[in-house]
């Protein structure tokens, strides 16, 4: 049985929204992983008694002041936290649009039959 074009269009939209949500969730997971890594690195820097750390640039280790690297990491944490929040908002919006569309489709199916 072929579905009416109207429902087919809504189903396609639903699929697109689901794909978008999947992408947002993947991005969020990767940003959260990076954030966790940065926070762990900051913790380790706090523990370290040395004033210098080494940064891997290309294939070379470059000596850097611990305080400078800490500042860089703190800024990165801030940026990543903001990014997580933005992604969370996008996720919420998509979830609610998905829910609305699902309800709309469910309502359309009995009338189509």
């Amino acid at each position: 049985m072929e579905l009416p074009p109207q429902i087919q269009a809504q189903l396609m939209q639903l699929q697109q929204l689901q794909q978008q949500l999947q992408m947002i969730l993947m991005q969020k997971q990767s940003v959260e992983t990076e954030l966790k890594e940065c926070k762990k690195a900051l913790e380790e820097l706090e523990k370290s008694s040395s004033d210098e750390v080494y940064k891997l640039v290309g294939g070379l280790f470059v000596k850097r002041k611990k305080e400078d690297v800490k500042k860089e990491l703190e800024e990165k944490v801030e940026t990543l936290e903001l990014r997580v929040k933005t992604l969370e908002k996008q996720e919420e919006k998509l979830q609610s649009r998905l829910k609305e569309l699902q309800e709309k489709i469910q309502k359309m199916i009995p009338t189509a039959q």
Partner: protein
Amino acid sequence: MENMAEDLRQKAMALEIYNQQLQMIQSEITSIRALKSEIMNSIKTIENIKADEETLIPVGPGVFLKAKIVDDKALIGVKSDIYVEKSFNEVIEDLKKSVEDLDKAEKEGMKKAEELAKAITALRKELQTEIQKAQQAQDKKQ
């Protein structure tokens, strides 16, 4: 009859998904074991190295350079591109902690793999029984 076929199809799909999940967990366990063995080797190396001692640094397959260890410190990564200097003892402690964490992850993975293997066996049995039933029903019809 149609319901039965749908049920069989769903179970076969679940079996396929379970099998994929099991394969993924098994490959993760293999990676964890490889990493653990690498860390254990590092611990052994650091435990056996001393400051001011001469050693051989591998620079390629079967090629070594003579080198001297200047102090009892090593660089350890705290993030993919940031390394801090720590004493040999501290590095060994950190590495041992990593091995402990990996041990935990390995155990969890093995537990999950065991559970999945059990679920797969049960589902396979169910499927076999249902397929037999379906075949018997078909034979009766004919």
